[in-house]
């Protein structure tokens, strides 16, 4: 993780307990499993191993192998089993180790979990959470580095959550588990080790509510996951040059807090979207379309999109660093429209 500078959390009050993003998620799972016997965890290496990124650590000792269930490498089978268990009233939290693996299980998510309620005329509830990881920066190449959230945002019936801080991670995961709809909960791998204040007691961060991570008046940056941190870091540098940047973190990408985003654009008149997803038909273009359709008269400059290029993530550190949206890219995009 040394290659990833996590700059500025934007939260933090003296005296509050500080834990990591991974610990915050672990605590959310623990507290929800303690609260509701219908919550259970299932996925590859989630048991004794504690999850490949350590998020389910200690849960098997506490809740046993029935509720912390290791699975074979059969993502379609066990995500589909999550759908079935949810359809009869359980609340499975299923782990898809890397979002890149969704291809082998996508039908169970986009044709099954997402559509069952609608197709059956509102009779079914599918309270399923699929936790998965995204993000580049680990020299993990094209099949372990992608940010494919757009493929889920695209599908009606899913909710898509992408937290950027430990506080949001815990509150959003608890809200997702308590939600009666299928939620795709996406954790950026580079964020697991970051620390931030997290209350000990269970709490919900409501789905569909964005968070203004930094207030500003000249330009709005809408950013997701790790890109929130890069944008905050860029904003700090831009401040020194007299440019005031507002950073909006949608936190949930579906539903989307359109009002908060539009209000910010109306205030600043300028928009940069920073996202690690691919450039075409992605979250960034979606927000650009939103601005063009609903805030055109408030825009003083073209909307700028900062995303990776239209290529798979490469392996070599030199290539990957060039591929990923950097702080410099963000600064350049902002300066381009703030003259």
């Amino acid at each position, binding site marked *: 993780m040394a290659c990833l500078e996590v700059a500025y959390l934007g939260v933090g009050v003296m005296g509050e307990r500080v834990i990591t993003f991974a610990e915050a998620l672990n605590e959310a799972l623990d507290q929800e499993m303690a609260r509701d016997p219908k919550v*259970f965890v299932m996925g590859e290496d989630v048991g004794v191993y504690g999850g490949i990124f350590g998020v389910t650590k200690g849960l098997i000792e506490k809740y046993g192998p*029935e*509720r912390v*269930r290791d*699975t*074979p490498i*059969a993502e*379609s*089978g*066990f*995500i*589909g*089993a*999550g*759908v*079935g*268990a*949810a*359809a*009869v*009233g*359980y609340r*499975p939290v299923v782990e898809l180790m890397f979002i890149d693996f969704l291809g*082998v299980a996508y*039908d*169970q998510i986009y*044709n*099954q979990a997402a559509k*069952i*309620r*609608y*197709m*059956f*005329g*509102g*009779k*079914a*509830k*599918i*309270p399923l959470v699929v936790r998965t990881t995204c993000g580049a920066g680990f020299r993990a190449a094209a099949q372990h580095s992608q940010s494919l959230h757009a493929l889920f945002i695209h599908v*009606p*019936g899913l*909710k898509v959550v992408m937290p950027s801080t430990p506080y949001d991670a815990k509150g959003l995961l608890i809200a997702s588990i308590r*939600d*009666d*709809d299928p939620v795709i909960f996406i954790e950026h791998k580079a964020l697991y080790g970051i620390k931030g204040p997290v209350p000990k007691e269970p709490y919900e961060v*409501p*789905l*569909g*509510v*964005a968070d203004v991570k930094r207030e500003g008046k000249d330009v709005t940056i809408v950013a997701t996951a790790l890109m929130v941190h890069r944008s905050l870091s860029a904003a700090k540098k831009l401040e020194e040059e007299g440019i005031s940047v507002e950073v909006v973190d949608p936190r*949930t990408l*579906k*539903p*989307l*807090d*359109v*009002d908060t985003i539009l209000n910010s654009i109306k205030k600043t008149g300028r928009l940069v979207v920073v996202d690690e997803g691919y450039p075409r038909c992605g979250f960034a273009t979606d927000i650009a379309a939103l601005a063009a*359709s*609903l805030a055109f008269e408030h825009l003083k400059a073209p909307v700028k999109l900062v995303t990776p290029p239209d290529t798979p993530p490469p392996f070599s550190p030199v290539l990957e660093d060039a591929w990923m949206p950097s702080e410099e890219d963000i600064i350049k995009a902002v300066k381009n429209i703030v003259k």
Partner: protein
Amino acid sequence: MLGGIILSVEEIPKEKLLWMYEKMLTIRISEEKAAEYFAAGKIPGFVHLYAGEEAVAVGVMANLRPDDVITSTHRGHGHFIAKGGSLKAMWAELLGRKTGACKGKGGSMHIADLDVGELGANGIVGGGIPHAVGAALAFKLAGVDRVAVSFFGDGASNQQNFHEGINLAAIWKLPVIFVCENNLYQISLPYSKQQTIKSVAERGKAYGIPGVEVDGQDVLAVYEVAREAIERARRGEGPTLIEARTYRFKGHFEGDPQIYRSKEEIEWWVKNKDPIKLFEDKLLSKGIVTKEELKGIEEKIRKLVDEAVKYAEESPWPDPKEVLEDVYSTPTKGWLVWRWPI
């Protein structure tokens, strides 16, 4: 092959036998009506009929309790009716009406009623198999003796969800019964060209579970095989794979030109292997029912089907604004069901 004790028809209560007969006949008469209505342009979309395969759904379902669950296929009318779904709600759904089982949002391919344990017909081949596994997992976690049955076709037995789902159920010893309705064709591709093994049931071995082949045109044979598998599942002894050899009397879908099989072949099956006729002959020859009784049952069922069709035709269409409803259960802030303002 089945190793259990073969019941003679006299050992099954008459009430149960008549239930099976009535369900099979209801499916057949309703499917014939659906063919007629589809041809007349009154049923929108795609329709896959279950005529010829009735003994499979009914023979299995005769062993299930209302709190057991099933997953079904694109050819799902029979499963829906046999599991206790409302005929009126099914017909209203086929016609796309507001009163339909899915409020006009699913149609023939997605007919479902969770209230009777019918977790849904599925437009994706093999898509429902893991759902039955998950429901069975929930039953195991809850410590109850409910079971889940997954119906699917021979085509689905080459799908990842078949292999992954059965393997999960096997390693976790879940109360699932996998019922392969092998109707010998995957749309046009004959079974012999889909796989090299002679029977889907043989695949049970690959997952360390029993695989049983049964004549899917003999409702009592299906009943017995299913009974053993279901009892086994309820006792916590794990899943069974049943392969019911059957035949669809209609095309893959209504309108299918069926160039992949001969008229003679279809006629042979209809003449010699009609599950309803075979069952009638058995009931009559054993003196369990009289011809008059059967005639009375048929009249009653024709009336029920006509009433269901009438109910559907007289039902209102959904309000176009309902297109935005039923996407989500839990409301949230933000834009949940997106629609660009025009």
